[in-house]
């Protein structure tokens, strides 16, 4: 089955700001980072300059374990864009740390995906110079 490989067509590139660069720098090193408020410790994603809970502008980040569960998912069929293989499953994963993150799902047939399924992050290189996270179901053996 498809592993979400692309034959080299680059994925759409993200717009990166000063508030989000830390995340993409982490991805380049195959690390999944979550922004953390320095003052109240709350984790947040997507990242931003201010803590919605305590208003602090001070933040750093933690490295996620990469484990989580599928909170919701879709299977994209249309339109077919060259950088992707279809049908293309995409998951909204609730990470162990409590924040949610969207990425491709591989290693499972589209019709076998279920909400609640445990998954783990891995990193792939869909095109030269482009690293992205994706999720794979955790197998019993794993």
């Amino acid at each position, binding site marked *: 089955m498809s592993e979400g490989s692309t034959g080299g067509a680059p*994925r*759409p*590139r*993200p*717009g*990166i*700001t000063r*508030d*989000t660069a830390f995340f993409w720098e982490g991805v380049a090193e195959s690390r999944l980072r979550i922004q953390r408020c320095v003052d109240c410790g709350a984790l947040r*994603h*997507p990242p931003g300059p201010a803590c*919605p809970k305590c208003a602090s502008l001070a933040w750093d980040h933690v490295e996620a374990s990469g484990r989580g569960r599928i*909170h*919701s*998912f*879709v*299977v*994209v*069929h*249309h*339109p077919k*864009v060259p*950088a*992707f293989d279809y*049908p*293309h499953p*995409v998951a*909204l994963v609730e990470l162990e740390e409590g*924040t*949610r993150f*969207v*990425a*491709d799902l591989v290693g499972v047939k*589209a019709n076998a995906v279920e*909400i609640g399924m445990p998954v783990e992050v891995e990193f792939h290189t869909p095109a030269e110079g482009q690293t*992205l996270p*994706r999720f794979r179901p955790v197998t019993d053996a794993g």
Partner: protein
Amino acid sequence: MTNLLSGKAAIVGIGATEFSKNSGRSELRLAVEAIRMALDDAGLTAKDVDGMSVFTMETNPEIEVFRQIGGSELKFFSRIHYGGGAACATLQQAAMAIATGVAEVVVCYRAMNERSGHRFGTGIQNLQAATTTESSHYGWYAPYGLLTPASWVAMFAQRYLFETGATTEAFGHVAVADRRHAANNPAAWFYEQPITLEDHAASRWIVEPLRLLDCCQESDGAVAVVVTSAERARDLRQKPAILTGVAQGACDDQQMMTSFYRDDLTGIPEMGLVARQLYEQARITPKDIQTAVIYDHFTPFVLCQLEEFGFCERGEAKDFVQGGNIEIGGGLPINPHGGQLGEAYIHGLNGVAEGVRQIRGTSCNPVADVENVLVTAGTGVPTSGLLLGQA
């Protein structure tokens, strides 16, 4: 709380071009045609227009449209962001301008060649990655293949099915109702083309759990509405549709199409906020509404809206839509014009026009004894809604 807006303004004119897949003319010309028709309908001229309110996605600037219709003095112009969420908010702008005396006759319009020109459903893969806040937002989705409105809405729809125990057949009931109503509307693209639940279930996947027949059309066309004071409306050509409530909403952790990080993904809190404001402004309850134009770019959010407006309990829309309850003759007929699945996708402004026709009693599918009509705007985005009542 004193409300200074309810009942102050009225929609007095509506106009629309034909709805097609290839208009054969510019978006600017479509805007001009629809506005001229709306002004004629009201018995007003371009010289009476002193305000305009439009969507930020509108490609025809107010000043150019105003020049083309032969306007002379424009005292108020405003734009509302967030796609189809602006549909009813443009009317709020108009009502506020009129209630405060800033303007007297305000035109709201939406003109687009959304099928023959730029199609929203083709994806944002070529969107320029920039260092702006809005561009970086899409960076959380586009690299992973969530490129279209259908893909973003499907994420909510899947969780909704999981939590409510509904099946995709519930989505089908919305599609069937829209298409039944469109079948009786000569202006609808799908005139005389009703569908069945079986047709819905057999239609191809776009983004699971959304099928083709869960997705609105792509349309070319324009709609314009003319708003003035309730007082002046009394002397005009048409029976006025009074704006008894009109509100916007955006809530905590609000995102453009991707509010995936809230505890609960089965509701639309920003539409709940709109609902509370509308009921408070108009001093009515859900049972006082005879028909509703529920924004239907994708069928699942119609179910959520029925719940947010209190027509049924949370998670029970799947039962509410059964047995023709949302069709003509049912308890709450929705989208009597055929909605954006059946009539056309004009970013919700064609739904406002249908609301006016229901108040006037001139709809192709008139609902009996209409006192109050609800119209909602785009969902999954910061949104808006309005209530129309009899003079």
